[in-house]
């Protein structure tokens, strides 16, 4: 009797409910339906704003399926989930009769994703008697459900909704949201709102929609109260300050806002001033000190010593006599060392090689700095690659 009951219980567990026959012992209690309380719109909005990031799809299983793509001729290509079946088929670009390769399926998946409004693309490929059956499944992006927007004075709620395509019912596009978010924050920083942040978070709701929360903090406008240069001895301040683009006082000037890109450009120009004066070891760094809505900008300069040229010559596999090369050089011993002049001389040598139809020649500048005497030896070595002996690699250790 006990054995029969056990057998019946096994049947009850393994047979689907609809297939029960009257031999099955009915459960003592009718199972109560598990009710999941649906969140109210306000609860959903709160959850979206409490989230730490945008929602992601669940983790995929990495060990499912056969390890290798089946080889052979494609028997059939199926696709489902596409909003435009013709566009999807065209994106897949593989047809029955073709041979199946990994490159083809990977390209097809990438092109399907690039169609837009696609959250996921899945592929399964199965061998059959007629060939390989390839099946693509497209998972469309979810729609936006509840949307909360906390705008500011520069970008209000409506502008943010428009820019981020964040209206309820629109397609959830996390890439566009992130790209737009970056653009908006960059624009605020450029306008002097150095502390501006734009948080976009969300949650996937039970109905599959994505609830979104957009929270803009503009902060206050930070303006420059002073710009100073420290450590100057040989160079005058005006020589450096004139390299700063201030856009009529709007940027990088007292009362204006910091524009880091223009500061970086100015530093490159300042380096040229250093180079022309032989200050090859000079350094420029910037320091900003924030005090409430004000910021002071300091260019900290270390000029270093003036570096003089001790030796400056051309040697190697010359394409003309040494005098021809010497006449091209713009630097002579005891001149201040300048990288710009060195580059210009290299260009002149290349032009000479072009005239001599020896464009195969390579010029390698070798510099040797003497820190004690603050001098530099520069040798421009002309190398003929054809004359370079190919040295065989040493024999491997036994």
């Amino acid at each position, binding site marked *: 009797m006990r054995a029969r009951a056990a057998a019946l219980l096994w049947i009850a567990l393994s047979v689907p409910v609809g297939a029960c026959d009257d031999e099955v012992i009915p459960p003592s209690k009718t199972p109560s339906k598990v009710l999941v309380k649906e969140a109210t719109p306000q609860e959903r909005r709160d959850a979206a704003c409490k989230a730490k990031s945008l929602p992601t799809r669940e*983790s995929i299983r990495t060990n499912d399926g056969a390890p290798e793509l089946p080889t052979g001729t494609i028997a059939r290509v199926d696709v489902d989930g596409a909003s435009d079946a013709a566009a999807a088929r065209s994106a897949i670009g593989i047809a029955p009769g073709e041979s199946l390769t990994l490159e083809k399926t*990977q390209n097809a*998946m990438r092109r399907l994703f690039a169609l837009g409004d696609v959250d996921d693309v899945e592929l399964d490929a199965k*061998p059959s008697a007629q060939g390989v059956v390839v099946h693509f499944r497209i998972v469309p992006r979810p729609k936006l459900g509840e949307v909360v927007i906390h705008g500011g004075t520069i970008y209000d709620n409506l502008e943010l909704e428009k820019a981020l395509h964040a209206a309820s019912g629109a397609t959830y596009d996390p890439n566009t949201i992130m790209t737009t978010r970056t653009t908006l924050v960059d624009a605020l920083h450029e306008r002097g709102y150095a502390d501006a942040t734009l948080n976009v978070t969300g949650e996937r709701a039970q109905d599959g929609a994505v609830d979104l929360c957009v929270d803009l903090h503009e902060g206050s406008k930070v303006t420059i109260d002073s710009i100073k240069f420290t450590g100057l001895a040989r160079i005058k301040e005006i020589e450096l300050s004139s390299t700063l683009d201030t856009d009529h006082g709007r940027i990088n000037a007292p009362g204006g806002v910091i524009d880091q890109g223009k500061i970086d450009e100015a530093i490159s120009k300042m380096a040229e001033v250093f180079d022309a004066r032989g200050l090859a070891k000079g350094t420029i760094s910037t320091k900003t000190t924030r005090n409430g809505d004000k910021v002071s900008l300091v260019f900290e300069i270390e000029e270093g010593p003036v570096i003089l040229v001790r030796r400056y010559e051309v040697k190697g596999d010359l394409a003309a006599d040494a005098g021809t090369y010497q006449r091209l050089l713009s630097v002579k011993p005891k001149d201040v060392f300048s990288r710009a002049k060195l580059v210009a001389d290299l260009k002149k040598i290349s032009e000479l090689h072009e005239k001599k139809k020896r464009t195969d020649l390579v010029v390698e500048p070798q510099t040797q700095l003497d820190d004690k005497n603050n001098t530099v030896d520069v040798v421009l070595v002309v190398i003929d690659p054809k004359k370079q002996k190919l040295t065989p690699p040493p024999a491997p250790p036994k």
Partner: protein
Amino acid sequence: MILASFVLAFGLGAADAQAVPYLDRVAAVVGDQVVLLSEVRARAELVAKTQRATLSQMTDAILREVTERIVEEKLEEREAQRLKITVPPEEIDHAVEQLAQSNNTSSQTLLRNAEAQGVKAVDLKEALRRQLIEGKLLVLRSNQMQRIDEKDLKTRYELMKKQVKDPKDLKTYDELKGELMSELLQERLQQLREDWMAQLRARTYIEIRVGSPS
């Protein structure tokens, strides 16, 4: 007749059981691009080979690490495209030569040995191309790297002194200066890369669907 039907039915059943489908999925999203599970598996297989293991022995945590690395490469590729930075084939060939020289062998032997270990020449060259791209991008940002001065070197030397049992065993500062410089340079470069990657990540939509973050 009954037996024939049974065999036929059994035969068909066996064929179906063998036909486990091959599956591919989106393993990660980087901006508007995807990283496929098949790409992750292929790279993980290379990792497995270097560790004398098989792909099936690679855990989800390792696959996630591999995916993270591919995501970073995609970020670098996007940045290289934006800045129009490319690596011509001759630079890659030169890198192969250098790698061969450092292994005391010729390029051909190096590529042959790699193939014998399951790494195709094309994959090795692609890995070198990615390294060269990363190098070029880092050079562009080198002005943001903290400078190494004498004080930094001396501080590092003092730290080494404290770590050795008997400071007399330690080489002099002048003897170790070059080594200290290269050690610090490596650390600063690593820091530069990490900061840069964090900036790129903050500006791009990234979703990794393999494993869970450690």
